[in-house]
């Protein structure tokens, strides 16, 4: 069906609204706990059952999309949307009934219903404000009709029938929307600058490169609601006067590419992309470009070089890309999540948008909460939420026997913030003054077993591997920093290393050519700022208080805390832990490897790291 104008679009929508609710879907939790209890088999059984019963439905296997609700002991978990049932301890024998009764008729299986009903009341979801993620798992992301049914393309219909490009630009500017891809640059300023830039050929680009290791918020958006990105880009193109757009997707995301491609095709068929959209004189075409597979390709100039077919390498940037970007034409680049906010703003108005978040940081942000917390996964919260409420309310705090130490925010070039920062509002400005960055919204929670020197070494190592090698500070300097950190972690620190690291880190940030090098010292700078004593202990005492750096501590079991469970005894690779059942364990240090395996498994915090000379 080809929509000739805005009225036809609305007629179609109101027809759909009176029809049945969006297609019912099942999801299977693919978190580590559920996998261990057989989630993959359940998923396969459900899929073949669906086929057998001739139903047309796919199953979301949320290997990492929902992360983990912290209900591992109740796994495998199966969810039913849009009803929001959560079923627990699902067995293979339940699958047939699950498909016929629950998926087919929307009735739950009483005996499997978990205590958390509906799932949105679960403590993981309850504090969240789901705007960007509202359609995730609720609709078939490849169905344009599902998208329309849930309010999709209302914004574009409105813009093309009643708003001038300038008005759309103004709305985004007044909304105060800031870029979600890292820097938090005001989107409206880029839009106006690109709109006013001279030139008849202009481009809009979406950054879906998501190079942060372990991050999946952009992926889940491209897979869960691809049309929101497409609608946002169409609005952006209309506003700035572009007729061509590219979505740059990390090539490790084949499902994102597939879903985006299907969504583009569907939109083209309906006349929502292509020539004369909805009967207007505005034309817009979209194409997917596969990423070059390097972290630095997410950087704006490298990304454009890569789309142009050149090596994805940053350029010295003293002219804004909104003036001269892709193929030297004015170009508007935003992160995919930034784009997905645009339809919301145009549809509901900038005042509505500003009702979430803080005045300088309006709206919500999708975070990826992982690490040493009880519950983990994709979380959407208003900007300005405190770090503490994310870690403790949503995430449920540190696992048993451990204590919170730090939260690493913003991807590899983010920073580690200590306990004193738990009251800090999560927004672009507060994070950067505290020495971290928003990045794309990754949060890794760390506890007393995470060594801050080792954490800095790890991230520096990642960035060293991703440095493109163009400019000397990043190419050579990151290697030098890494080697010093590695020395500290191996007990080969030299006097003055900590001070030297401070100097090198600050110089690297000031001298590197592109954002990668300029921010590459953040992990180091932030850990030095908040955890300098750990550096000094490594340097001067060859001591790692976290029991992480092998050889820089001895494990010791506190008999008052030890319950005698024997977990450490099982975990010890050197078999040097001994003791009777239900009695406090002891360690034969003479043969201990100082590997820390006992510390990692003890649920009571009884195994602790002490100085080797004590």
């Amino acid at each position, binding site marked *: 069906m080809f929509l000739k104008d805005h009225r036809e679009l609305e007629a179609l929508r109101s027809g759909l609204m009176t029809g049945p609710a969006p297609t019912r879907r099942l999801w299977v939790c693919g978190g580590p706990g559920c996998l261990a209890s057989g989630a993959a088999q359940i998923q396969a059984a459900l899929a073949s059952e669906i086929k057998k019963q001739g139903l047309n439905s796919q199953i979301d296997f949320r290997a990492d999309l929902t992360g983990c609700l912290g209900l591992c002991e109740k796994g495998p978990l199966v969810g039913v949307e849009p009803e929001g049932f959560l079923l627990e301890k699902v067995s293979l024998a339940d699958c047939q009934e699950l498909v016929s009764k629950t998926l087919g008729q929307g009735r739950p299986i009483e005996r499997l219903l978990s205590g958390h009903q509906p799932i949105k009341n679960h403590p993981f979801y309850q504090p969240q404000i789901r705007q960007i993620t509202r359609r995730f798992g609720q609709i078939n992301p490849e169905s344009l009709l599902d998208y329309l049914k849930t309010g999709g393309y209302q914004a574009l219909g409105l813009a093309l029938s009643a708003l001038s490009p300038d008005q759309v630009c103004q709305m985004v500017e007044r909304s105060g929307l800031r870029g979600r891809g890292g820097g938090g640059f005001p989107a409206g300023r880029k839009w106006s600058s690109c709109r006013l830039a001279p030139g008849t050929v202009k481009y809009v680009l979406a950054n879906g490169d998501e190079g942060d290791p372990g991050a999946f918020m952009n992926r889940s958006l491209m897979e869960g609601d691809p049309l929101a990105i497409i609608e946002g880009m169409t609005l952006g193109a209309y506003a700035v006067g572009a007729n061509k757009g590219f979505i740059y997707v990390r090539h490790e995301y084949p499902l994102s590419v597939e879903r985006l491609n299907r969504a583009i095709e569907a939109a083209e068929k309906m006349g929502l992309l292509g020539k004369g959209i909805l009967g207007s004189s505005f034309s817009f075409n979209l194409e997917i470009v596969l990423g070059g597979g390097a972290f630095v390709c997410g950087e704006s100039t490298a990304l454009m070089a890569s789309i142009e077919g050149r090596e994805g390498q940053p350029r*010295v940037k003293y002219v804004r890309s909104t003036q001269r970007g892709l193929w030297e034409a004015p170009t508007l680049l935003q992160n995919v999540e930034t784009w997905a906010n645009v339809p919301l703003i145009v549809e509901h108005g900038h005042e509505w948008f500003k009702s979430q978040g803080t005045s300088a940081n309006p709206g919500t942000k999708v975070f990826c909460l992982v690490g040493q917390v009880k519950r983990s996964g994709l979380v959407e919260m208003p900007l300005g939420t405190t770090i503490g409420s994310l870690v403790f309310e949503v995430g449920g705090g540190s696992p048993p026997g451990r204590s919170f130490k730090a939260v690493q925010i913003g991807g590899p070039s983010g920073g580690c913030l200590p306990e004193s920062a738990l009251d800090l509002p999560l927004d672009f400005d507060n994070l950067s003054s505290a020495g971290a960055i928003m990045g794309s919204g990754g949060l890794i929670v760390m506890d007393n077993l995470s060594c801050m020197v080792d954490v800095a070494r790890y991230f520096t190592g990642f960035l060293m591997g991703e*440095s493109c090698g163009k400019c000397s500070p990043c190419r*050579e300097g990151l290697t030098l920093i890494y080697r010093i950190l590695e020395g500290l972690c191996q007990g080969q620190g030299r006097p003055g290393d900590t001070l030297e690291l401070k100097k090198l880190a600050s110089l690297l940030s*000031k*001298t590197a050519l592109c954002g990668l090098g300029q921010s590459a010292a953040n992990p180091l700078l932030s850990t030095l700022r908040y955890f300098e004593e750990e550096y000094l202990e490594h340097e001067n005492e060859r001591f790692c208080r976290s029991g992480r750096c092998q050889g820089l501590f001895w494990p010791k079991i506190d008999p008052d805390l030890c319950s005698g469970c024997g977990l450490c005894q099982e975990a010890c690779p050197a078999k040097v832990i001994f003791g009777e059942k239900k009695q406090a364990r002891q360690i034969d240090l003479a043969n201990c490897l100082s590997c820390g395996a006992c510390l990692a498994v003890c649920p009571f915090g009884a195994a602790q790291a002490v100085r080797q000379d004590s």
Partner: protein
Amino acid sequence: MDHTLPKVTGTIDGHEFEVCHGTTLLEAAKTLGIKIPTLCHHPGLPPDGNCRLCLVETGDKLLASCAFPIRASGGVYLTHSPLVFEARAFVLKLLLSRAPNNKELLKLAEEYGAQADPRLSDDPDGCLRCARCVRACQAAGSQAIALIGRGRGRKVAGPFFEPPLDCVGCLACARSCPTGLIACGEEPRVIWGRQFDLVKCPQCGRTVGTPEELKRAGITSWLCPDCRRREYSQALKNLPEASFVRN
């Protein structure tokens, strides 16, 4: 320099300058006689800003002066502040580990009190990765060599580290290399593991270049530039008087 462009003004180390819009900070400093050390910069090649030696302070930021076009008046630039000094010493220390015997680098290192760090002493291959050779190759019209690989493993080479098929043997890369590291020979013409024929001027016998090089430049006559000029003026001389009348 295009003199129809508007002028911009500012100060460098307290001295006022006035240059055309878009002039680089490095050139502006030169008009004041202020010297800024450079390595990757070459006046005949597009700026790349990769070595970071020419950094200059403005506000509390550092700019690569070789690549920074001045587009607004009122800028206050410092080329020899303590921060600039420290930054250059940092860059020199890092580059020195790659080219510990480079005379120019050693001289600069002495001036800035920079020393190589023993922890970076592996692989001192002498190359600064300034990409002047790669840019010279591109500017001459080929893309025979490139910087291949990432991070510290980055190296100048032909595709797949083999003798580059697109090389025309013009030696532009070797001549623009600040370290003289690219092994080559004029006659016989060898570079990047390849040997090239040489074209001799049919009149004076001088070497004009390689056939591939002339073809790239679209030159069909094999005369050397001098003999070509002579032949051209001879032809002019033989033209009838009327051809020179202006209308």
